[in-house]
């Protein structure tokens, strides 16, 4: 019965989910014995509103190749509006990530309700496949390996920005 899936690269996916909707949706996928790639590690939060963008950066820095943030559907938040705050926060955060050159395909946001075991499987499978095709995320790992920043303003862009102040 055990079959080994042979892939050259197994991405590491970290999922930040809320307890009430997505965590419960993932539980449902389990009780329904649905199958999905074993690459995902789930971190549970009371609400997506609790998820600090820093956690996402931290995850990439720790070697995640893809990050998933998932909570209740708009309007269904257990805490009334936490997911709206999260949505607003992440809209801005995505821009920042884009600016610093992270391929946004590595970061996925989704709404998965407690009744959507199937959707959880779909979202996780899609993200895993997508990130697998993209290959390992090296940018942040390289950054993490680099020495601390020297404090020298040496790129032309930074110089220009600095002089403009």
């Amino acid at each position: 019965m055990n079959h080994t899936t042979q892939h050259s690269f197994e991405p590491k996916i970290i999922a930040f989910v809320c307890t009430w909707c997505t965590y419960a949706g993932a539980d449902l996928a389990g009780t329904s014995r649905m199958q999905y790639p074993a690459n995902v590690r789930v971190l549970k939060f009371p609400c997506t509103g609790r998820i600090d963008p820093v956690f996402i950066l931290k995850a990439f820095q720790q070697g995640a190749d893809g990050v998933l943030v998932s909570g209740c559907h708009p309007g269904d938040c257990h805490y009334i509006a936490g997911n709206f705050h999260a949505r607003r926060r992440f809209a801005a955060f995505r821009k920042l990530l884009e600016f610093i050159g992270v391929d946004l395909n590595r970061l996925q946001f989704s709404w998965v309700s407690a009744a959507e075991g199937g959707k959880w499987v779909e979202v996780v499978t899609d993200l895993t496949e997508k990130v697998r095709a993209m290959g390992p995320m090296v940018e942040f790992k390289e950054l993490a390996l680099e020495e601390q920043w020297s404090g020298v303003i040496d790129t032309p862009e930074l110089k220009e920005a600095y002089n403009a102040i």
Partner: protein
Amino acid sequence: MSRIGVFICHCGENISRTVDVERVAAEIGKHPGVAFSTDYKYMCSDPGQTLLKKAIQEQKLTHVVVAACSPRMHEKTFRKAVEAAGLNPFLCEMANIREHCSWVHENMEEATVKAIDIVGMMVERVKKNRVLPTITVPVTKRALVIGGGIAGIQAALDIADCGHEVILVEREPSIGGHMAQLSETFPTLDCSQCIMTPKMVDVANHPKIKLYTHSEIELVEGYIGNFQVTIKKKARSVDEDKCTGCGVCMTKCPQKKIPNKFDQNIGMRTAIYVPFPQAVPNTPVIDRDNCTWFKTGKCSVCQKVCGPGAVDFEQQDCLVVEAVGAIVVATGFDLYSIAEKPKGSPIKGYGEFGHGKIPDVIDGMTFERLASASGPTGGKILRPSDGKEPKQIVFIQCIGSRAREKGISYCSKVCCMYTAKHTMLYHHKVHDGQAYVFFMDARTPGKSYDEFWRRSIEEEEAVYIRGMVSRLYQKGDKIVVMGSDIAVGVQVEIEADMVVLATAIQPQKGADTLAQKLGISYDKYHFYSEAHAKLRPVECATAGIYLAGACQGPKDIPETVSQASAAAAKVMTLFSRDKLEREPIVARVREAGCVGCFACKKVCAYGAVEEKEIRDRQGNLIKVVAYVNPGVCAGCGTCQATCPSKCVELDGYTDEQIIAMIEAL
């Protein structure tokens, strides 16, 4: 140094079939900080829990991780077991290796590696867990009910019958609300007064109910279980304790031509008055704007005739403070005014319908007063302009409601039914009359409702015209109503004697101000918002505050009463305990670092964040910081992710705990 105990469950074979549990236990055993690691067939079983408790004591464990099913399944079980063994329950975490691992993967190697990761993550997390005390707050077992319509009355009676004291605050001089104004009620056509007044009297006589009429809420402080409410008792000019309700004053008052709001201004009252004969309490009140004494300093006839000497021109507004543990808001609705476009109303006006200019264009509530046996016409349907009986009457539904371009997109819900009722009452009273109804759709869900509506057509001969009215105007003593019948595709023109508009149900004026005092939320129309549309329909998001009746959205009487009883049940659930115990997953502010930007306060949907002054020993203000009230905080953590100075922390989900988990990967 922590001594963590890790317990890997086989769950029969549910986990062990795809996860090599022994290998997981062995690998985790090597993890720094782990003092004890084992696997067992059924951790949740009695012997499983005993194994856990024994290990805690014998191995002197400081933290526990149970790797088994979802925490949504057994977190409570294991935390209880841990507590029984003498550890703080929040030093125990579960690693979900069943729903999130063994059940969703087939490959043993992959599943085992994942399980080791999951357990490792939880081990790192639990190291950072802190002892959390259970939070308890005392409960004052007295309830405040705001609004004395049928909703407030029902809620107050239910709570009081259960033995708890109730403070009922009503803005008007009498309780009763709109239901007291109705003639007969759908779907059974029983007389509203007959079913309403006994309940009003019950309220007045109930030893557990303290009634404040002609009063308003001034200030609400505190939180669930512990509210302090300041009530303003407006001056009545009549001493309630002395007044016997004989009514002599009213017969002698020279001001007799003041339009009575209770009769929709078609009946008249005196300056010292009770709004209607069955008013509760039946103590009169002086309308100071219209009283000769207050205007000119002369008269005082009422004072002279009052036997017990109850009339008191000197009376002042006064404030009383009541301590309560729960609040039921039941402030009901108002009708969109056709007389003049109300200020601040989202509706853009209905000038084309005569808008208060044509006296015989009235609203539904005015029709109720005309049809009421105790109304100004004694129950006869007569035109306000000349007192003649209308032989042709036109009812127009959806005035204001369901007209996005006019301002309101919702359905007022009761108009289809009360218009059907009006056609019946009309037919019962004016046998040779003809009723026409312009309607968009007939919306009659509800027990015996559709049958009732059909009866108005099939037995009471009302003519229903599907379509809207484009214009109406006065022609001699007739009102010409022009509209279209979209079912047949023709224009219709009716020369009517009277027109009744089913105007939109809106929240009470001042609903927003009251909401701000209570700290509850409302929608763009100012209807109050429930915590969850489906699962918590009678609770506000603000703990300890409940909703009943039409203040939450248009409702008929059966629905209003159901919700009121449900709200009462919620209050009684709260009052069933002396102390409130709650999960200590609440946010805490690090005051030293807080800069008082109150970004947290803005995002908190529960109003849990307060402003706290920090003073030095001399009492000089140093700074104002945020303070999270643990009785109110729901534990979502949105404030923490928002705080720019990282000074709010959600217990149980601290940055430390989460970063530790991420770093474990």
